[in-house]
């Protein structure tokens, strides 16, 4: 048994699979104070449905793959740990200056982001290394002590350390870290050379601070999770999703919390590929609208886009990660009127606690979920399969008070306005990941995930003119599913600087073998048999005197220079092969991959187009094309079968998500059970596999 668990800002999703291909799904509310509580609750639900005790169930689970948006949300909402920074005297503002960039050069209203550590908590420490790591001035421990006095008085929860030139000699950072461990043993400690041992001060200090800022939150969470899992008798392997699309052990995630900054959404592109793959496609847009955030990613030629110099909320994060656009838009996004009298929705979220007003848990702020409820898009008695009863009056009151009245609008118009604003924000996110990178979104099927996604997908598609999107049957646990499609991935890096022609072949191969051996050891501790381990060795190369590298597979070693010239030419339009410019090697990298069993998706037998067996009834729902309510048919999504067709407007309810098919769209169920929704004016956009079904 393997379980994929995705802890979102609002919901925690579960997908359990067994060797025979059967799957089981669960969804519970996230418990923000300690998300492990919600996680355990979900396992309990899974166990109960199988008629097992929690202990019996936990005993059969061999692997839990776990992704969390906990750290992402902390940065997006500015809710991270109170962090102190120790840095070299004279450069404490580097974090806030961000090298003096203003991303919008012609926009004088564009302001800098508030620094993750305010200036009075960025403390200078005397002591200096030169560019080669040689000590110029000794570390002054008294400066560290004085800073720690302040940090203690200010109740700082996390401390980041980043000194000039520490990449060349971590000694000063280590000694400062010792003092921090002794004086503030409870504080989360982030040492730049442990997080990112590479040259360039700003990306390193920013990454170290991000790590500190989210560290305490992740550490509290993982510690509690491991303890609780042990208590219920789980003896398998726990793995945590990283931003690069692979997984790591919780021990390394805890020390290097920044690798999880895009942990949750990192599984999405893999999952998207599986669902479009059943139509023979290898490209898609994936979008995931949860309770707090909206993620959009792009897969081309079977590969998710990857970035190595990424950002989280305009803070540099120099760790490899998938290229995912995240926007503060979700079911919990709060609607408000800004200083200029304009309606805004998000990025603030009511999260799971207190949650939307309609949850009746004391939330007073109107959210997108409240608006969806008022518009009839959600059934108050069938939210989360009826486990969360929704209070329609509370939703109405919240929207009335905070949006409708200030704007002088009826409640319905205010609710419809909130939905339009959030839909436009999400469409902008899709534009960002496609058009902004030079791709036409209309050429990519959009795979829609997240509990709130299917309710808003038609509006996003209409805004962008997308003729086609696909809602997987288990769309609400999309990322949890993606996690089970992911292989174990461990990246190792070792600096080896020198001219390629001058480094003996044995030295290179020896270094690679050492890294590979470390990879094999870790994978074997994760129960991966030797025959499922693959090792990819890579080298980062450049022409001498360049400052950026190109990463290439090391083998075949004989033609590495030739491949480098070709790759440089492909990427940058020229090579210096004829000039005979020497190549310089900077880093060796090894990625050790352990192949995991992927759950199989059984193909359903095709039945006729008639969906009436699954019809539950009808209710008034606001239809945007008509700008009014209409009586709209409601279907039980679990009862729909391969080949069934439904013309919009229609509501398709499943336990964990509601799909709203707008008037100009139609949906057909494919062989994997996914709902394929298409623009009725554009049936030509359907993949060949479905044209057959429609005929």
């Amino acid at each position, binding site marked *: 048994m393997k379980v994929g668990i995705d802890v979102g800002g609002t919901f925690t999703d579960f997908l359990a699979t067994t060797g025979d291909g059967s799957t089981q799904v669960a969804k519970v509310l996230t418990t923000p104070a300690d998300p492990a509580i919600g996680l355990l609750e979900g396992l309990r639900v899974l166990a109960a449905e199988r008629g097992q005790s929690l202990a019996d169930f936990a005993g059969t689970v061999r692997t839990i793959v776990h992704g969390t948006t906990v750290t992402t949300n902390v940065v997006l909402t500015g809710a991270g740990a109170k962090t102190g920074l120790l840095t070299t005297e004279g450069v404490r503002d580097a974090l806030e200056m961000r090298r003096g960039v203003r991303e919008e050069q012609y*926009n004088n209203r564009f302001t800098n982001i508030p620094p993750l550590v305010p200036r009075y908590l960025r403390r200078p420490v005397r002591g200096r290394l030169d560019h080669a790591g040689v000590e110029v001035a000794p570390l002054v421990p008294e400066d560290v002590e004085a800073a720690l006095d302040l940090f203690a008085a200010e109740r700082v929860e996390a401390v980041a350390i980043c000194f000039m030139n520490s990449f060349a000699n971590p000694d000063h950072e280590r000694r400062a870290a010792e003092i921090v461990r002794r004086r503030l043993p409870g504080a989360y400690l982030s040492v730049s050379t442990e997080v990112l041992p590479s040259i360039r*001060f700003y990306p390193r200090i920013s990454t170290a601070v991000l790590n500190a800022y989210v560290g305490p939150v992740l550490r509290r969470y993982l510690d509690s999770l491991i303890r609780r899992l042990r208590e219920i008798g789980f003896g398998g392997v726990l793995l945590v999703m990283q931003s690069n699309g692979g997984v790591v052990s919780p021990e390394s995630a805890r020390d290097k919390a920044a690798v999880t900054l895009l942990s949750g959404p990192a599984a999405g592109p893999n999952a998207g590929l599986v669902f479009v793959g059943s139509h023979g496609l290898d490209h898609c847009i994936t979008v995931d609208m949860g309770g707090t955030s909206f993620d959009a990613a792009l897969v081309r030629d079977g590969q998710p886009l990857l970035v190595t110099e990424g950002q989280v909320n305009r803070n540099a994060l120099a760790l490899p990660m998938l290229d995912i656009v995240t926007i503060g838009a979700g079911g919990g996004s709060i609607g408000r009127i800004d200083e200029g009298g304009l309606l805004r929705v998000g990025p603030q979220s009511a999260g799971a606690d207190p949650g939307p007003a309609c949850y009746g848990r004391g939330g007073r702020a109107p959210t997108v979920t409240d608006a969806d409820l008022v518009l009839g898009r959600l059934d108050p008695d069938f939210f989360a399969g009826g486990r969360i009863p929704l209070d329609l009056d509370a939703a109405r009151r919240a929207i009335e008070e905070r949006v409708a009245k200030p704007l002088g609008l009826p409640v319905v118009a205010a609710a419809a306005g909130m939905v339009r604003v959030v839909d436009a924000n999400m469409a902008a996110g899709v534009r960002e990941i496609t*058009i902004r990178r030079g791709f036409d979104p209309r050429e990519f099927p959009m795979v829609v995930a997240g509990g709130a996604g299917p309710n808003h997908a038609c509006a996003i598609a209409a805004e962008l003119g997308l003729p086609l999107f696909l809602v997987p049957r288990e769309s609400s646990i999309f990322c949890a599913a993606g996690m089970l499609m992911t292989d174990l991935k461990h990246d190792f890096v070792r600096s080896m600087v020198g001219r390629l022609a001058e480094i003996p072949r044995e030295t290179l191969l020896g270094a690679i073998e050492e890294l590979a051996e470390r990879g094999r050891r870790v994978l074997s501790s994760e129960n991966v048999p030797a025959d499922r381990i693959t090792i990819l060795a890579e080298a980062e190369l450049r022409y001498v005197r360049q400052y950026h590298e190109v990463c290439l597979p090391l083998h075949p070693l004989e033609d590495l220079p030739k491949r480098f010239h070709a790759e440089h030419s492909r990427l940058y339009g020229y090579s210096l092969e004829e000039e005979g410019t020497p190549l310089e090697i900077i880093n060796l990298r090894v990625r050790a991959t352990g192949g995991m069993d992927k759950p199989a998706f059984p193909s359903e037998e095709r039945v006729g187009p008639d969906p009436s067996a699954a019809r539950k009834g009808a209710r008034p729902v606001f239809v945007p094309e008509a700008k009014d309510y209409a009586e709209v048919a409601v279907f039980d999504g679990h009862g729909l079968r391969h080949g069934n067709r439904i013309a919009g407007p229609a509501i398709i309810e499943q336990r964990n998500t509601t799909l709203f098919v707008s008037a100009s769209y139609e949906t057909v169920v494919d062989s994997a059970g996914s709902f394929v929704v298409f623009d009725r004016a554009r049936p030509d956009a359907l993949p060949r596999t479905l044209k057959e079904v429609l005929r």
Partner: protein
Amino acid sequence: MIDPILSSVFARAFKSITDEMSISLQRTTRSPILCEAKDFVTGLYDAEGRMLEQTENLPILSFSLAPVCRYIRRYFGDDLHEGDVIFHNDVFSLGNQLNDVAVYRPIFFQGHLVGWSAAKGHQADIGGAVQGGYNPDATECWQEGIRIPPVKVVDGGRPRRDVWDLIFANIRLDIVREDMKAEMGSCVVGERRLLALLRKYGLARFTEVKQHLFESTRRMMEAEIRTIPEGTWPGEAKVYYDGRHKGSTFTIRVKITVRDGRIRFDYTDTDPQTKGFVNGTYTSSASATILTFLQMVNPDIPHNEGMVEPIEIVIPEGTILNAAYPAATTFGNHLCPPNADAIIRALAPVIPDRVTAGWNQLLCALTTGVDSRRREKYVDIGFMGLKGGSGAMKGTDGYDHIGMIDASGGVLDQDYEMFEQQTPHRLVKHEYLADSAGPGQWRGGLGVETRYVIGSDDTTVVAFGDGDVEPAFGLAGGGSGSLNGIELRLPDGTERRLASKDLVRGVPAGTLYVQRAGGGGGYGDPRSRPRAKVREEVRDGVISPEAARDLYGLGED
């Protein structure tokens, strides 16, 4: 019927192409001026040399590429072929500054010229009397460097080794040769992407959509101009010291006429050119005008030919903003800050909610010499030290440490560790400068203080800029920012304060370099600034308790 989604796909595709060209250039160049600070621009133009899109890391370079495209077309006439690569830097045929060497690549599709990709970057050396190119003693262009009128270094795909060798025989540093290859590569990247787009959509759609983009952009710009009251609005600003005559001043005078959706900037009354290198070229001055005006309109207007079409600029030859042959002009790009001040002052009474107070003016230093650690020549432009604060505007504080208005935050600090790798110097301090920001209800952006120890003997320090006489001005009751200044503290205990245009040779190792870049001007009465905000800034040490009391009136209420 134009497909609106397809238009925006094209617009974004053009943008992604010039962005990719920019990334390509940044990742392959050697000089820190390019690979660290991004002192370059990449662009895409149609066959007629009209701007399709640009990535304007340094806007002052940006608005001269399209005119040079047109110039090159006229210059070569029918003699343009697939596989040609053309170099250009000549200031008397629409260049910016001799160090700003551009590559133009004509793009052919099905046998027809369909467009141009181009890249222009500040090269670390261009020959002339001073390594690095800034020569305050120059009185003629030949003392500043080698002039490259349009010349084919590759002719129909065949490299011209003779021409190549002629050019690089006149330039000191080998890395310039490699960095020009990188510019050429960036243009190949642009060509490949544009051709892929053409293969996919065809020439007819491309032509149609392009025209549509130009027109809709022009209409957007005209609509923006129509929101400015019609009339003629005069403004002026001073330029201090030509590098030769102590105390000399010059005045830039602009008359801005707004009428019928068009705007005209007339510099006819501007002072004559100087005898030194403090002179502009037409394109550097026109770029300055455009980039300043763009900050007063909707920032989302696409950057293509339609954007500049309603803007008319008149700069008579022989003025300080458009010096006549064979004047020295290396300082020309740096006349942008006073030019911007003149424009802001002209429009501040007319559109008070859309202008900023004065920005900190550029004062820069270039250090050059031989890195004793490696016995290699180096040139460093002190980007981190020059970046002061922007002016505040109604509703928004100035941006801290953004730098001169001609880059507006597009040019970056050297990364500190890369600075210590690439120069022999050791950084001592680079921090916000307390009380540098002009006070106001919205304060100006903060300036910075930079200190480093010079690491090799016989270092040359060249200063160029302004802002050491007149600070960034405040508006609507806001105060002015602090002044710029550079000094050298020599190991023997003597101090030398640099003039705003200066050249010091033989600076010994161990000298402490100290620079203060001032803050921007404030907007509105400082006593109206929220008290909590002032207290927070006192706690953070960017406003002193004295300034909080005396300027902001903290504690009086």
